[in-house]
């Protein structure tokens, strides 16, 4: 049986709060290593939050086995929350690896692992202030002939009036 007692534990609440606060503090840094550590702390906090939402502590959610756990001794803890957290833990590992690879790559290219401001965004902002188009796009010209006028120049690749091309058996052998 699953417990319905969901009164949260104050200790866990404290852990969640501190992990989130420290995590966010690091997350807002520019060094990718610190961002990553921030994310790890934040992830741990989130896992605890899910755990708390699942209800109070209980026996391991393993049925039968007669090892004292189970219905008699103590109610089980919520297995659904645990399955979700398990997924989250492993994903966090993959994420750690990925961000580390980015940090390393950044260090390899720039000699540091800091997230710089996006130069492209800065450029767009500067051009927008000057009211200059930020990209060259011949597809959206304002002047020039209308598209209907240009459609006149479109030519299909039609069958040529050369009989050799049109003779079915050999003419097409090459294609």
């Amino acid at each position, binding site marked *: 049986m*699953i417990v*319905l*007692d969901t009164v*949260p*534990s*104050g200790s*866990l609440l404290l*852990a*969640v709060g501190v*992990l989130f*606060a*420290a*995590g*966010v503090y*690091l997350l807002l*840094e520019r060094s990718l*290593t610190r961002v990553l550590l921030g994310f790890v*702390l934040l992830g*741990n*906090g989130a896992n605890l*939050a899910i755990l*708390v939402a699942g209800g109070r502590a209980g026996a391991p*959610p393993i*049925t*039968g*086995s007669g090892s004292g756990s189970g219905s008699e001794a*103590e109610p089980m803890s*919520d297995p659904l929350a645990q399955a979700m957290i*398990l*997924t989250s833990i*492993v994903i966090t*590992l*993959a994420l750690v690896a*990925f961000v580390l690879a*980015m940090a*390393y790559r950044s*260090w*390899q290219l720039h000699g540091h692992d800091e*997230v710089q401001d996006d130069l*492209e965004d800065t450029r*767009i*902002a500067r*051009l*927008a202030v000057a009211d200059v*188009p930020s990209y060259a796009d011949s597809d*959206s010209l*304002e002047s020039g002939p209308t*598209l*209907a006028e*240009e*459609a*006149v120049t*479109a030519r*299909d*690749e*039609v*069958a040529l009036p050369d009989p050799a*091309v049109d003779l079915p058996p050999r003419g*097409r052998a090459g*294609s």
Partner: protein
Amino acid sequence: MLPVLLAHGVLALAAPALVNSLGRRAFWVLAIGPAGATVYALSQTAAVLDGRPPAEHLPWIPALGFAIDLRLDPLSWVMLLVVGAVGTLVLLYCSAYFAHDARGLGRFGGYLVAFAGVMAGLVIADDLILLVVFWELTSVFSYLLIGHYSHRTSSRRAAMQALLVTTAGGLAMLVGVVVLGVTAGTWSLSEVIADPPSGTAVTVAVVCLLAGAATKSALVPTHFWLPAAMAAPTPVSAYLHAAAMVKAGIYLIARFAPAFSDLAAWRTVVLVLGSATLLLGGYRALRQHDLKLVLAFGTVSQLGLLTLLLGYGTRATALAGLALLGAHAMFKASLFLVVGVIDAATGTRDLRRLAGVGRRLPVTALAATLATASMIGLPPFAGYVAKEAALAAWSHDGDLLGKIMIGVVAVGSALTVAYGLRFLWGAFKPRLRSLPDPEGLPGDGARKESPGEPAATLDASPATVHPQRFWMVAPPLVLAVLGLAVALVPQAGEKLLAPYANTYPNGEPGHLTLWEGFTPVLAVTAGILLLGALAFWQRDRLERVQAALWFPDGADVVYRRLMRKLDRLAADVTAGTQRGSLPFYLGMILVVLAVGPGFALAAGLVGQPAGGGLPVAVDAVGRDGVLHLGPFALVPWDRPAQLVIVLVVVVAAVLTARARRRLKAVFLAGVAGYGNAALFLLHGAPDLALTQVLCETLTLVVMVLVLRRLPPYFSDRPLAASRWVRLAIGVLTGLVVMLFVAAAPLVRVHLPVSVDFAEEAEAFGGGHNIVNVTLVDIRAWDTVGEISVLLVAATGVASLVFLRQRSGDVLRLDPADGDRSPEQAATAGSRQVRQGTWLVAGPTLDPDQRSVLFEVLTRVLFYPMILFALFLLFSGHNAPGGGFAAGLVAGLALAVRYLAGGRYELGEAAPVHPGLVLGTGLFLSAGVGLVALLAGQAALESTILHLYVPVLGEIHLVTSLFFDIGVFLVVIGLVIDILRTFGAELDRQAEPFAQALGSHGRAGSHAGGERA
């Protein structure tokens, strides 16, 4: 009906392959699709006319009431016939029209058939949402076909313009459809029409529908995309932009007119837009010199007329409209195909340069004449019958509006006569007049007006008829003759079209006849023809007048200006919101989280009666030690040890945030992580604790592997001020989350879904460990998603560092004499062990970096660890463990091997490519899950097999074990990828540095293994 649509889909997918193997003849095969639709429509004629429309129903999203409902009522029957028959002929025409080596023919054929399919779906859809889906698909295929010559800027722009205009209308239409469906309480088209809702919302919805129809059918002011769409290949113009797609809007009007034509808004929109389009199209057509453009503006004009007739709302005009719809499909498609023939034969479509074509292309000239006669409404052609019926209907009404309509249509028809004659004369006139603008006409080789040129040999002159040529000349002639044939039996047409026209609520039923006697209508017709002929006779003068007249900026210019403004607005908005700073973005998101939902929560809590508290779950009442803090209920701890560990975690987290040294920060974060594992254990989650410990260990290894390459300290940044901001945001976020977590469990109103998991796990999943059964069975799809993420992450890690390929070769010892099998390698390894080495690849390391103790331990520990991993894997269904934990243990075993023996040791320990491991794992998990489908179960459903093995006794094998093995392999693959990347590859990249720094040359001990 569904098989007909599916056939189109299959043909579209097969088209590239067909064109590859059959060349242009593939179009004959592709024509099977629309031909099938035609045959189907014809075979159902009796049922349709008897009022027993065939219908098919397939559930789609039952929860929302969406269904794949198809229905063939008389209107759909007419449209399906038009779409199918013209589609068939156009595809046959394509087989001769294009050069055998034309570019992108396979793609083109696929798009064209796919379009025919979605167009057929559009006209038989009986579900509002399905209708919108098909509607948008026709826009997409129209875009692809207009942009067929994607190397041409103007083609791309024309395609983009058509797409933007039609999808903008489509968006409005979607809004209308949703409002309509919600108001009516059903998504069934026929039910909405049968019992139309009313009210202001419905009126707005109907106007939205009309906006969609107007853009699709190129009504003013969005007509400009249609002439621009002439950049498409000519068969596309004939099919999409004359016969089929532009009729979609007309179809929509005809479909909804019986329900909504009484609305004042409907009448206003339809009559104003229809009249304006009719007149503007005809007027603009008189100035064009390109044959296709003459026809394109003519089509615009005719679409306006169709809108008037089918949207007017009386039975007689509706009958005339349906007749004109069919007639227009025949004559306009025929004329476009004729233009294609002329274009292919002479190399030009400029009517100032064409002469004498009729002599060399007599059959084509005949087709063009018949089709033009139908277009301008000469008796006894279909166009005449339709127009007579329209005029008769309005004159029969006799009211003022009817008289105005007669006037508008008369002027529009006179313009039609004028541009029809202009087209016919321009294309087939016997000889050129003096050239108006000689220097504008380059004397290129493509000009073949004069007799004696090769033009003589290439078309359907009786002497030299090539088989493929037949397919170019026949389709337009067939369509043109059809336009004559159906007109000769107007009663049959009336019998076929009247059933739908009579669903209109107002007016007397109309009639289709060839001869009604001497009536005022006849006089009007004669006047139209005379006026049109006059306008044609005076065409040069008329052109000059048109050129001299002031004309407001075309709608296309307005459109372009609008798009340019949109671009600028986008740039301004981007500049205003995108600062390019990651911390800024993240901070903004978090502040919004705290201020928005956080504030709402706080406000909600303040509103709680003091002492009343949040509803505390049932079982908790009477529990000891529950503290009530304001609205909250809390226990200080679940178990006393919890508090101790929480304190450790808190201290570790705070110190992590303060650490300036990378390694220190990493270790402190690790302490917090291990603390979490302990909290999990205390909470009653041994699986979590196990996984967390393993992950934390692996994370530490990985971090240290990378950090040895990064600077030891975080760079100093003079950002003391921003640190306080970050701290504030951090504390605020922490508090808000705490608030949420404190409130969330207390406001729960439902039982958790997991109350039944215990029983389900045993009964269906065949396991005792509920968490594991949840992962591999109850919520297996989640797990499939997760391991896919792992696979992506592993690939990303490898490609970020390996750069040139997904990941390098597997590093093995002695690849020089590579014919040594792994077994031999192993024996060689054991020989080396006897010689004093404990690991196979130990000697590849620098002697200074080797530790005998570590090597001995590794040798002793590796196989037990692997065994333990397997134990966890197989016992995980009933005890803590499972694929994730097992994979992590095995991964740690490999990590130990790598740390002790270097990268060659890793290659020896796991002599497989990680990509292979990852792929096999995902295949086992997801692929084996699909096997359940074959067995008639839901995907990923487990089966419990009871096997009897002689010695071991009865064994219960749950199929989800294979799923878990897949998970196990994916995790191992991830770890191998990580170790190879951050370990082996970083070692290799670091080596040149190390050597440059003059460290010990290790080349001698490498056993020739290095392949840079």
